């Protein structure tokens, strides 16, 4: 099972890395920004009627919040499996 999981994760990493080599000159901007640009082409008169209440002041702060989001998630995932693996191994020793 573990070997299979590692293989699957390796596959994900490969899928994520390949685009970087196929499109060496690409900017890898967000697809949402492209959608916004398309809106501006289709309906140049459109004015966004609502602005974000708060924006991360810089790319660094933005990456901080993104890292935080990922850390919260991975932290819990680690806790979850640690808890159940620990629970299982205690049960084994008690027997």
């Amino acid at each position, binding site marked *: 099972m573990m070997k299979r999981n590692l293989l699957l*994760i390796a596959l994900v990493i490969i899928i*994520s890395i390949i685009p970087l080599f196929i499109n060496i000159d690409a*900017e890898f901007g*967000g697809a949402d920004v*492209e*959608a916004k640009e398309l*809106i501006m082409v289709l309906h140049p008169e459109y004015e966004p009627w609502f602005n974000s209440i708060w924006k991360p002041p810089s790319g660094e702060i933005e990456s901080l919040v993104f890292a935080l989001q*990922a850390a919260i998630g991975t932290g819990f*995932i680690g806790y*979850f499996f640690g808890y159940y693996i620990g629970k299982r191994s205690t049960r084994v020793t008690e027997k």
Partner: protein
Amino acid sequence: MNKRTLLRTTFCILLGMILISKPVYAMHIMEGFLSPLWSGIWFVASIPFLFFGVKSIKKITADNPNLKMVLGLCGAFAFVLSSLKLPSITGSSSHPTGVGLGAILFGPAATSIIALVVLLFQAVLLAHGGISTLGANMFSMGIAGPFASYFIYKGLDKANAPKSVSVFCAAAFGNLLTYVVTSLQLGLAFPVESGIMESVLKFLSIFAVTQIPLAISEGLLTVVILNLLSAYNKEDLKELALIRGGNESI
């Protein structure tokens, strides 16, 4: 290498991926980019599902408080995956949704609440997506995607497909459908003279191709986490399958 070391390596690799992925932008409909009318329509469309979601979570966790941990895991998984902005073959980047896992385990209604938490976090703290477009993004990522995942999983499972194939397809196609719905929403709100369809296709051309490799990645990662779950917490999975009317464990 024993199992625990392997598990630790798995997490290190996951963490590594987070560090490698360069924060750029991402892909929900941006703040203010749906007219007040369409923003309202999607809010109204999403609210009933949230209501059912709260009810469904209350019911499941009232009878089985230990399943709160598994629900938390589904939320954590969605948190991690939607923070991973991955490069795609089109030269732009986008992120997986991570809600397929919740849809498979807890059903689409409960998953809509998970999606709401993720979308709110990103709208308020990251200016990614938005408050005004929250209803629309909820509908695509929190409702349409999870419903697709749920039915694909159920269908393939009934057809006796191998578990990992059902899980992979459910998560991958749920992810794709999320962005098909996003394109529909944008096409409806910003039609061109030759019709809504053409506008939808234009938006689809931005999202769909970009999303294909990410959908595959999401499918694979969902299989990984379910493999881990069935290896280390089979009891809760069985219990969950029982409550949810399934006759077999995942």
